[in-house]
């Protein structure tokens, strides 16, 4: 869904501040340029947009609907609100949903302290999960030589799926099932270690926001991810 960027400049307001945007820029891009914080999980600079986590929703004056900032283009005269009480509560609830969906025990997680989910909860001031954990029985796939996939920590943001296809071109990672039974898979749902298509590039591990994809041999809190390479790679691809 790539569009041509035209030079036209439009003006709008974000949280009462006048800002100027290039046409087709998203609300999220614009907010980031203007140092306005909007939480995100499935969005990652350099990957295609997904629009699934819904944590980035914002209000637009004159509409009852909420809009995902990562996928909503800025339009002339728009008045965007990114931090109302209502949005704050919705974001809490979305984190609630994510924490309750799988089994997140941060204290023993190798990504403890370096996890986007954990970081957002702290940043938004969330203190407890209000709904019961669903406690599904999901696997840990440790068959790969270097990496581990722990479905207990997966939030299904599909960053790994996108990087594996869009950047690495391997299409090893995919997604099966639907609804709450959705799972990340490798090839025909085989063990990761058995995959003939995986190049072991490690990109999926580095883009994963949580402790779902980690390197082997790390102990709790040791897994730090590197992502600064993404936007450059993407730029090079487009040229």
């Amino acid at each position, binding site marked *: 869904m790539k569009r041509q960027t035209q030079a036209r400049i439009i003006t709008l307001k974000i949280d009462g501040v006048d800002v100027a945007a290039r046409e087709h820029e998203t609300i999220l891009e614009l907010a980031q340029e203007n140092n306005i914080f909007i939480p995100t999980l499935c969005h990652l600079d350099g990957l295609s947009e997904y629009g699934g986590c819904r944590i980035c929703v914002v209000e637009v004056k004159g509409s009852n609907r909420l809009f995902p900032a990562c996928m909503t283009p800025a339009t002339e005269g728009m008045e965007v609100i990114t931090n109302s009480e209502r949005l704050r509560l919705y974001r809490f609830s979305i984190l609630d949903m994510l924490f*309750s969906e799988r089994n997140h025990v941060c204290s023993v997680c190798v990504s403890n302290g370096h996890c986007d989910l954990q970081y957002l909860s702290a940043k938004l001031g969330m203190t407890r999960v209000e*709904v019961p954990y669903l406690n599904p029985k999901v696997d840990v796939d440790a068959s790969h030589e270097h990496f581990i996939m722990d479905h207990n920590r997966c939030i299904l943001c599909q960053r790994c799926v996108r990087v594996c296809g869009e950047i690495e071109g391997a299409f090893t990672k995919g997604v099966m099932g639907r609804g*709450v039974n959705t799972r990340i898979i490798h090839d025909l749902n085989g063990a990761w270690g058995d995959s003939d298509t995986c190049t072991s590039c490690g990109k999926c591990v580095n883009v994963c926001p949580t402790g779902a994809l980690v390197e082997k041999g790390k102990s709790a809190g040791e897994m730090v991810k590197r992502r600064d390479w993404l936007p450059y790679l993407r730029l090079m691809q487009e040229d």
Partner: protein
Amino acid sequence: MMIERFEEITTEEQTAVAEHDHTVKVCVAAGCLSSQSDQVLDALKNGVGEHRGCHVKGVGCMGLCSQGPLVAVESKTGAKSGSVMYQNVKAEDAPDIIQSLGKKPVARLELKTNVPFFQRQTKIVLENCGEIDPERIEEYIAVEGYQGLLTAVTELSPIEVIDEIVRSGLRGRGGGGYPTGLKWTTVAKMDGPTKYVICNADEGDPGAFMDRSVLESDPHRVLEGMAIAGYAVGATEGYIYVRGEYPLAVERLKIAIRQANRLGVLGSKVCGTTFDFNVHIRLGAGAFVCGEETALIASIEGKRGTPRPRPPYPAEYGLWGKPTLINNVETFANVPAIVRKGGAWYAGIGTEKSKGTKVFALAGSIQNTGLIEVPMGMSLREIIFEIGGGVPNGNCKAVQTGGPSGGCIPADYFDTPVDYESLKALGSIMGSGGMIIMDDSSSMVDVARYFMEFCMTESCGKCVPCRVGTVHMHTLLNKIYKGEARRHDLETLEKLCDLVMNTSLCGLGQTAPNPVLSTLRYFRHEYMDLLVDGAEDGRGATAVDAQLLEAQS
């Protein structure tokens, strides 16, 4: 010239009809077929062999499906000229029916037709259902079929066609009620040589079968509507996305497309003009969410049917990234008549904001289960008690409209006219046309739980609120229904409704809470009665029928 060809066919058909004193029509749509109407048809065909002047044919749905197999006999001569209808006909009844031709009808099978069910309907979309053989294009043409398309491509400009649709006030019958003329205008304005027309025949509402009946009974009508749309918006390819569970509809569509291509009303050079229009069929594979337009497009492209945020709308960025017009089966089925008789004629039917007629599928606790078509604005009471014949045993409690995206309307509100706005004001929606009537024996909490289970299993899993929220809501509804919940559980449920409704990506999630919200609005006491700490006097949960509970848990 196509027009002469049409006249020829019409004359042939009329001559054939004139040669017969009696026409015997047997419903061979899915409802009656499931009670072996095909055997009835064969028995009658074999039986009339010696009876001259009688023509036996298979036709589409006659509406009163619950009494099937239905057979209609039209006679021009004899003691009993006119028409008779028979219900619950079996193959063994064929000799009696043939014997009676031109004489007294077979009393034990007779179905009274001077009743509101048949008399209070206004048929536009269903006008040919139960009248013509869906597998013969000639019969469709003999009842002015493809006249609308011919007029459009030979006499009108695309803009004039769209003007007619705008004037008609037609709104989308797929549930949303978006003005069809406006949608067509948007797609027509898009640049580019390649555009698509898609007919949404995914009919996902479980308990509705309007689109199915139209496709099985009068498939050419939908094709004609699509071709007119293609001409109006500038598209040369059309896709019909049909539910995989409808093999008969697919079969009849295939036949219809083949016949239309051969006659030259579809394919290249439609009706001898320079306009080309090819129609392809795509099969769904059992995913409710694929009725959502962006998911449907993904599915036609061979992918997982997950929706994406709009904008951009399909009108701008649709199938394979091209401008795409998506309309529902019934929306397209209205188009030929509008072009033939004019938008003003259509706008004369219905209410100020909801024009024309609407097809409904009546099911549940109601006497006359089946398919009906009524003008917009008729009251629920007339539909349920007069046309539907009321509830067989017990009291009518509520009607559910709009399926999993809709709500339950209690009997107190049955004087409400059926139109898009009024139903919305009551917390339900028009939806695609499913009406499920519930009597006293239905628990509203159970109904809410049922629909939540549906949404939970049909959620595509892409967005967090719908994927996880529906599971939590379903768990809570189960807990309430079993009498194990407390007031704070109900509060959590309401909070989740608000979350899922407002933050979900697509219509499935956004409307999933509707059945809960509407039952809470009108039947809150049923929830309260089931809470451990619900009743004012602290009595605790009232027992639900233990056996039912066991059966359903």
